[in-house]
């Protein structure tokens, strides 16, 4: 089970320089308990068997360190490797695969065409699938109905791509699975809150099975956000959005 410690205890006999070097060598991750982007990175680190120090950020009062490491976006996740920061979860996932190429399983496939396809579906998830799902969750009435229809349309495209495979990457999970993975617990939460089913067995059987495969995989089931707390947070978000439009 991967550790998520905030401190490392050094031997008293290490010199100051050795301690600084050791400290710089430690992989660090700045995160937030509810961020799906942070979880993607954590699952990737687990696939590679990489130990890391986790730093929980208060997004309403961001640390000086975070602002120094990610001045452009000021967001989490940020991975620190040998003292140098990497931001943006998509970028971090590819970095993890390359920096620890010979550790654990590959996250991206070897073949250039397959790599391009994986990257395409990640982009699809972000640019084409996420917006209508978010819109569906944060609106009501006609606007919500339209978003629901758009979301189902994009999910059907994804269903076709998955085509009964265990994971998008095949027998083992890969980049696309990690990238879309948070949907496997977020969508059921959204369905519970809105009282509407988005992923129906009759229409999207492969996706439904994939969500199960993903959540039950050894990497993911040992590291998921606290669901009750997350559901309350999502509920509050929906309420805030509905309030703003009234």
């Amino acid at each position, binding site marked *: 089970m991967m550790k998520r410690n905030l401190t490392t205890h050094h031997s008293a006999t290490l010199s100051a320089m050795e301690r600084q070097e050791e400290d710089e060598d430690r992989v660090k991750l700045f995160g937030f308990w509810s961020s799906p982007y942070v979880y993607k990175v954590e699952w990737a680190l687990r696939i590679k068997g990489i130990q890391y120090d986790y730093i929980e950020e208060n997004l309403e009062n961001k640390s000086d360190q975070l602002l120094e490491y990610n001045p*452009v976006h000021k967001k989490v996740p940020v991975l620190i490797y040998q003292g*140098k920061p990497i931001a*943006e979860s998509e970028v971090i996932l590819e*970095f993890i695969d390359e920096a620890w190429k010979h550790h654990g399983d590959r996250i991206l496939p070897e073949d250039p065409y397959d790599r*391009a396809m994986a*990257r*395409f579906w990640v982009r*699809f998830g972000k640019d084409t699938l996420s917006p209508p799902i978010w819109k569906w969750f944060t609106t009501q009435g006609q606007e919500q109905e339209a978003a629901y229809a758009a979301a189902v349309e994009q999910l059907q*495209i994804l269903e076709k791509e998955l085509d009964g495979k265990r994971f998008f990457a095949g027998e083992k999970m890969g980049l696309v699975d990690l990238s879309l993975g948070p949907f496997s617990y977020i969508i059921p939460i959204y369905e519970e809150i809105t009282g509407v089913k988005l992923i129906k067995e009759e229409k999207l059987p492969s996706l439904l099975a994939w969500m199960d495969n993903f959540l039950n995989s050894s990497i993911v089931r040992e590291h998921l956000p606290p669901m009750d707390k997350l559901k309350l947070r999502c509920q509050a978000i929906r309420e805030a959005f509905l309030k703003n439009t009234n």
Partner: protein
Amino acid sequence: MWASPMAIRVEWALRLKGVEYEYVDEDLGNKSEALLRYNPVTKKIPVLVDDGKPIAESTIIVEYIDETWKDGYPLMPADPYERAQARFWARFAEDKCNAALYPIFVTTGEAQRKVVHEAQQCLKTLETALKGKKFFGGDNVGYLDIIVGWFAHWLPLIEEVSGASVVTDEELPLMKAWFDRFLAVDVIKAALPDRDRLLALNKARREQLVSSA
């Protein structure tokens, strides 16, 4: 499509690698059956077809080209951290800067002044990736130059068409100098769409957009 900055990226990458290719111009108002078959998901150009296999999304295509013709001119840096930086800035340019530029094209007066300022802030952030270097890729043109490069040819044109002043020596000296260096590279110059033709197209488009706003 001859006037598409996204398609140009792919041509630059292929040319730097010395890869021969057949160019098929699409009429975006009447997309070919082939395009819709090769890219049914987003139906957009550019699409590269290599040995019958289609790849869409210009940033993805450029990486594909680099990985497939890996013994040719290197587009991405070799070091994983440098590669991460290149991808990070490419995402930033795509997601933030592109979105910041379009409003300049469709606004006038005070509204335009406001969006020009915002675009400049975005470009100033991007400019930090150029500090101390000839190109984003270092001594030579690389992946990030290819992704951001369209600014060099299109931005001065957008400025002319919309009467705005964005990339100036005072506001963005590094970027301006890079524009000149980038456009002077033979391979880059060779693939640029005709400026007059592009100017006429964008002048017409702006008139249409501003009048309907």
